[in-house]
């Protein structure tokens, strides 16, 4: 029975944990805190300042890492998010940067090895902090009012809206394929290949038809190809203070910190 259930259940694999990751971020982004309440545009600019600060600080030793690490950890605490969980989730970059860091280490450049690992990890942490304190729609509105191309923002809005509808459907279809007799282990490669191909083709068709239905519904409701942004947020005094504070800390870390 257990085996049967496993064969028919949704595929367990790498992607599932990634999805979980997203669901967690989404839940976090809808909480409330000092950081959550800041204007999305201000947070985007602050993120830019932090990332440029991390990227351009050179040499990037343990002192600098500690400084930026404390800055972002402070952000996590101010956002009232679980620090440990966030620090763990930032490790998602390690498989990639670890390989290059190891290469640099083997070729005798241990300074660069450390900098690659620390910079990529801290940057991921900063992005994670933004994503965990700002709901995606607010982030997209913020990006649009900062001058991101309207067409791109529109595609992003629909992409985000249907991301999990379509991926859930893919999981259902894959499960259905396995219930029709496709086994993940043991079946011939050719059969599995054809099953995967079939799932993708049908998924494409269903996505396309879903898109057409959405399009008709939106046209019926008077959609003229433009998203009218209703900007309820405004930049207040707290936002300015926040941005000034972050920029000051980044500048301090960038120019004075390690020489102190």
């Amino acid at each position: 029975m257990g085996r049967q259930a496993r064969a028919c259940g949704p595929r367990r694999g790498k992607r599932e944990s990634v999805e979980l990751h997203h669901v967690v971020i989404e839940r976090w982004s809808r909480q409330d805190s000092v950081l959550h309440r800041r204007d999305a545009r201000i947070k985007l600019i602050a993120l830019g300042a932090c990332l440029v600060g991390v990227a351009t600080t050179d040499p990037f030793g343990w002192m600098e890492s500690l400084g930026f690490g404390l800055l972002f950890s402070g952000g996590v605490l101010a956002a009232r998010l679980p620090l440990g969980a966030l620090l763990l989730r930032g490790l998602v970059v390690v498989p990639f940067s670890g390989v290059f860091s190891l290469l640099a280490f083997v070729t005798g450049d241990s300074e660069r090895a450390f900098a690659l690992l620390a910079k990529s990890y801290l940057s991921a942490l900063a992005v994670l902090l933004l994503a965990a304190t700002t709901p995606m729609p607010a982030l997209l509105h913020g990006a649009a009012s900062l001058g991101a191309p309207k067409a791109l923002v529109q595609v992003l809005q629909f992409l985000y809206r249907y991301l999990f509808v379509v991926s859930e459907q893919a999981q259902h279809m894959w499960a259905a394929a396995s219930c029709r007799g496709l086994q993940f282990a043991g079946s011939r490669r050719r059969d599995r290949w054809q099953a995967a191909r079939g799932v993708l083709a049908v998924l494409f068709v269903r996505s396309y038809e879903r898109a057409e239905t959405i399009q008709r519904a939106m046209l019926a409701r008077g959609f003229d190809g433009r998203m009218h942004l209703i900007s309820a947020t405004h930049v207040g005094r707290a936002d300015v203070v926040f941005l000034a504070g972050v920029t000051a800390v980044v500048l301090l870390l960038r120019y004075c910190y390690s020489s102190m």
Partner: protein
Amino acid sequence: MHIPDGFLTTPVWGAAAALSLSGVAWSARKSEQALEAGQAPLMGVMGAFVFAAQMINFPVGLGTSGHLLGGALLAVTLGPAAGVLVMTAILIVQALLFQDGGVLALGANIFNMAIAGVLVGYLPYYYWGATPYRRAAIFLGGFLSVFASACLAMSQLLLSGVRMPAAVAWISLALFAVTAAVEGAITLAVAGAIERLNPNWIQAPRNTPRLGAGVVLAAAVFLAGVGALFASSLPDGLEKLAERTGIAGRARNLLQTPLSDYELHFLGPQWLGKVLAGLLGLLAVYGVCLLIARWAGKRGRAVQGAASGSL
């Protein structure tokens, strides 16, 4: 190959961001008409489709599996401009929500995977889509799309001073080729299946076969991709390359002697020019491709017109 933050030097990510910005602006302008006709939901849902498609694994052999990356498939189904836009959106969501690729490195990733990946993936189909080599063109599109993206990413890393021994560079190149071949096969399989369900969902190819130009252009893109990588990684020419890979092959030697003897002298300032030339060359190929395509398109229509006039 999503580059995280912290790997690229400021000139590299800055230049890549500037290039991507203009590329995305171009695709946004080209897609404006489609968006005004209410096609935004289609593009968004197709982006979501590519995300979901990446969950479906295709068995490759030796116990490994690959999945669709989607650049060439988007180009063939939505057209190049919309394909670039959708791929850009996918990369942005991956960077923001999944920490897959950095935010400062987004410019480089968009250039590699959305702009180069989609446009290069579309080229073979553009030229051979209506010939008997149609299936080969779709496969080649998938292959080139991934191979060009990976080579570009590699060049940007090398350009930023990331070091690796020659053997590692060669092994990565071989891995890129395998991944690219898998992408080609998956793209071909899925595009074929979609077409069987409804031929309208695949972009209509051009009617006039232009084999010669297609061969030259595809080869140029391929060579520029490899060239950009090796102009940067193998500055001393082929003899040194043979010597180094020979030496690198002897594992015991490699372990006993200091590795720095065999590693490549990336980014001595004298090689910077070569690397830049490689990347600029790739860009130049793009410009030339677009110009030739436009010119050939006009001539093709003129010839067709003349032919139908004489009937």
